[in-house]
């Protein structure tokens, strides 16, 4: 159900309590709920949020051998904080203020805003159920060779 123009990829995040997650992500990160699909029992089956032209999907924990075989979707809160993916959010501006808003709403800030060698200012946070979020704001255009020199890493543009 991704809207046209939201990008080819839509991250889907699984929560024990998707309704609480929607409220929290609105308050802490400023995302806007754009779609909530509720099943006959009143549970949130699927939801979408938008932010600065991008879209993410929010769902509940899910396992259904008859529908999706052996795969299972769970919250990091059910795995001692482990996760299989994280989401990077690119902000045009206001990274430090965004971090303070998130902190005030209860986000656990695991790295305070800091300039990185690759030309972005970055902070990292855990949400209410332990999903890892990285927020970044571009601050300088850094050529790949300068990034490589600054970091001691090898950087290529193909495999």
């Amino acid at each position, binding site marked *: *159900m991704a809207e046209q123009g939201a990008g*080819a990829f839509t991250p889907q995040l699984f929560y024990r309590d998707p309704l609480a997650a929607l409220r929290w992500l609105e308050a802490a990160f400023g995302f806007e709920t754009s779609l909530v*699909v509720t*099943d006959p029992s009143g549970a949130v089956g699927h939801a979408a949020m938008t932010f600065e032209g991008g879209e993410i999907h929010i769902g509940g924990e899910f396992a259904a051998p008859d529908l*999706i*075989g052996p795969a299972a979707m769970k919250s990091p809160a059910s795995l001692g904080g482990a996760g299989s993916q994280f989401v990077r*959010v690119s902000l045009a501006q206001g990274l430090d203020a965004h971090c303070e808003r998130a902190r005030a709403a209860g986000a656990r800030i695991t790295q305070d805003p800091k300039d990185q060698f690759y030309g972005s200012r970055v902070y990292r946070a855990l949400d209410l159920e332990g999903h890892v979020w990285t927020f970044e704001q571009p601050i300088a255009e*850094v050529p790949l060779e300068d990034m490589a020199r600054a970091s001691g890493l090898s950087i290529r*543009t193909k495999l």
Partner: protein
Amino acid sequence: MSDPIRPTFSSGVYYKDPRAALKWLEQAFGFETVMVVENPDGTIGHSEMRFGDGLIMIGREWDAKHQSPASIGGINTQALHVQVPAGIDACFERAKAAGASVLREPADQFYGDRTFMVADPEGHVWSFGQVLKVMSHAEMEAAEPGVTIKDRL
């Protein structure tokens, strides 16, 4: 970085073997590797792939909190949905031929998309969708009795 356009949201996906993952995602899904950052020991520290106007990052497991599904009993805490403009059945055949495990064959959904779902060799779940018919929320609710659809919380 030098990306011309960076999407607001881009996911980072953890693998035990990120180099094998990059190769497999190129072959199975047609994603394009656009950046590979290697540590001095030759391991991949960070990489980026593009598909259409989307961007994802492929990385390694780097502590107990960042794990491939292959290391946590096949569980996904996040997954990626990939929207294609056309050719979803051909996408499915290509993925299957490359060894994707099929979780759901292509099928038309009540909300107007045709979708399928597969898992990659380390157990990350990928769903693909193509819009067949743009539908209003009222049309979707009529097509799936019992479901309620709202555009706000």
